[in-house]
């Protein structure tokens, strides 16, 4: 709001003050050949949000198919009536529970890796000054641990599918088993994509890429990984509560 004083020219009273120059828009701070890592991180996160929206839509549509198919009555010729053929599936809950714990634990280690990378990137300008020491940094391989836990989760899922086969449930046995396999395998495929991103982020360290570039790789991988963990909880609850 404009403020007026006794010295304000009479003609200016009642008029809006001059509009500030518009400098908004998407200026990304491009300045020659010097990469702006802050802008790149923001851009990468924005891309990741779009990617997560896409994966979300895939699972939302699979969920709606799940609910639709579960409530669908089927005409049975023998009894000349409509029956529900959803069927049941005996899931290996203990194994799936262990897998859940492994994935959640991996999400924690991934977050620690993300914070470590962010701290390194923030301190890089200071630590590069000769004579400046930031003390002994604990170099715990959180990223490597996350990779191992990710593999452990996938192996655990493989064991769960084998257990379902052993109990006589295959993808075609009944709608319930079809969706159980579909949802868990679809999640595993997306988590596999996360594993590739993880290995790529880890290799950024080994290839001695700039610490800021490494931070971006770890950051977006971490957020995707957290999303995978949340998605798994959702699938776990869906399979458990809406059987």
């Amino acid at each position, binding site marked *: 709001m404009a403020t007026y004083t006794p010295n304000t020219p009479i003609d200016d009273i009642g*008029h*809006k003050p*001059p*509009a500030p120059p*518009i*400098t*908004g*828009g*998407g*200026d*990304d701070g*491009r300045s020659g*050949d010097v*990469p*702006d890592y802050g*802008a*790149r991180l*923001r*851009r*990468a996160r*924005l*891309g990741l949000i*779009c*990617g997560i*929206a*896409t*994966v*979300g*839509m*895939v699972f*939302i*549509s*699979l969920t*709606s*198919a799940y609910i*639709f*198919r579960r409530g*669908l009555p*089927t*005409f049975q*010729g023998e009894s000349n009536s409509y029956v529900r*053929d959803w069927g049941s599936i005996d899931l290996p809950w203990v194994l799936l529970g262990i897998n859940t714990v492994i994935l959640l634990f991996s999400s924690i280690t991934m977050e620690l890796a993300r914070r470590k990378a962010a701290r390194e990137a923030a301190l890089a300008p200071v630590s590069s000054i000769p004579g400046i020491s930031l003390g002994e940094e604990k170099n715990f391989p959180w990223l490597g641990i996350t990779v191992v836990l990710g593999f452990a989760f996938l192996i655990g899922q493989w064991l769960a599918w084998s257990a379902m086969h052993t109990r006589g449930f295959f*993808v*075609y046995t009944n*709608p319930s088993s*079809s969706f159980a396999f*579909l949802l868990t395998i*679809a999640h595993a495929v997306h988590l596999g994509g996360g594993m590739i991103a993880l290995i790529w982020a880890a290799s950024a360290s080994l290839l001695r890429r700039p610490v800021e570039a490494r931070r*971006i*790789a770890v950051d*977006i991988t971490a957020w995707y990984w957290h999303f995978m963990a949340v998605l798994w909880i959702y699938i776990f609850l869906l399979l458990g509560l809406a059987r």
Partner: protein
Amino acid sequence: MATAATVHSHAPQGFIRKYIFSLDHKVIGIQYFFLALTAVFVGMALSLLMRVHMIWPTANWPLVGEIKPETYLAFLTMHGTIMVFFVLTTAPQGGFGNYVLPIQIGAPDMAFPVLNMLSFWTTFVGFIVLLCAFFVPGGAPLHGWTGYPPLSAIQSAGPGEALGADLWITAIAIFCVASLMGALNFITTTLDLRAKGMTMMRMPLTVWSWFITAILGLLAFGVLLSAGILLLMDRNLGTSFYVPQIMVNGQIVGHKGGSPLLWQHLFWFFGHPEVYIAILPGMGVASQVLSTFSRKPIFGYRAMVYAMLSIGFFGFMVWGHHMFMSGMSPYSAFAFSILTMCIGVPSAIKTFNWLGTMWKGRIRFDTPMLYAIGFVSLFVSGGLSGPFLAQPVLDIQLHDTYFVVGHFHLIMGVAAIFGIFAATYYWFPKMFGRMMNETLGRIHFFITLAGTYAIFMPMHNLGMAGQTRRYSQFTEVAYQTKLLPLQTFITFAAIVTIAAQFIFVINLFWSMFKGPKASDNPWDATTLEWTTATPPPHDNFGGKTPVVNNGPYEYGVPGAPKDFVMQTDPPTEPKH
């Protein structure tokens, strides 16, 4: 991750990196454009074969011989699929969106150039996989571009429903992945790479249209991908998502309990937004061209933006109007009907604003303008039959007739194609540095416009008379036979219209090499692509970063030295 700022410090020199696996959005845009051009000729050839078969059902044709009913259905399927996915989705968004959007917002490239390249080549692979369906045992599938089960879900349901249908679904799934990558890139680029001063409400309406289209694609293609995976599982893994217990060729198939309606819900949840994915970029181009060639600001800029957002929003709520025939509850049908007619409001806002833009303008009737006016004409003609089909009681009568064929070809097919033509004639000078031939352009326009109406308007009459769609011939039923003369007329109109497209192709390639050199701003336009060199340098602005001071359609500004003010000119907004 490789991003715009890092990848494009220097232009690549090798042929492979410069023209094949290029990261430059302009090269990728041109690649998309030529992919769509190839696809449209394949699709057109298929439509020609269908048309001639209808009036000469026993004739032998080069390459294909005598067309049997199942071959006709295979052509129908492939025509629809190629046109919808690889032309109407690919050219306006992948082609012109890729080429123009970054320049119009003042960016050096798309946000993720590597992803952009991957998106194009994935689309290309999808197209090749789709074409392979012609050459496998059984040939291409019969189930139409909508792929309704149980026909599409059972391998023994007919020739083409074996490997051909698997390839069809795989091609669609590949296309979905490519489109999702593209949509992600468009959204991030628009939100994050705009030049200083390029606020959202200073963006050209073309940018708005590509942005909203990308959002629709991001939310819609994932659903189609899921639906396709379920279909592949039903076909190959013995699941029963879509297939009830039915008999095929006298034998009970091993499925039970599934519902074809599940596919219809998932498919049309994608399918209706897909209509807007095809047409929204055309709306953006029409707005851009009509304002430029009327030498007037666009009428109601903000209303145009909100109308496009409303169209996108409502586009996700009306899928059920494709399913009035499915036996849905009348209450649901009523809701879908009302919501469908709601789309008429923003559509009418856009139409009246286009007319308002031209009203009392100093109109220049160059070829891009002709096509933009043609777009409006077709949008109105095709749109007016929409409220008919939005009524469940009328739709039940008209749904499986030529009325629907006429409706969707006008509104989604040819209107979008006119948008593509307007864009081609408008941006060709910027893309290739030369002007297209105006005389050939006008001849092409008038034949195409007249031909389009001659083909698709009579289809409404055929539909109201009860002529069924998807039939390969009409010689067995008396009342259908009586309508054959009109079908014959349509076929001859199609032959002339298709022949006229060669005028366009000749003009395109001749002008590319022999056309007169274009200046940097041949249309006296205002947006950022016309502030840079023709064709634009590798980083779009030759190392400079544009600063935007004005809106995108500053024509006829009082007191300005010219009748237009470019977006980078000193500010014209009155200072209070």
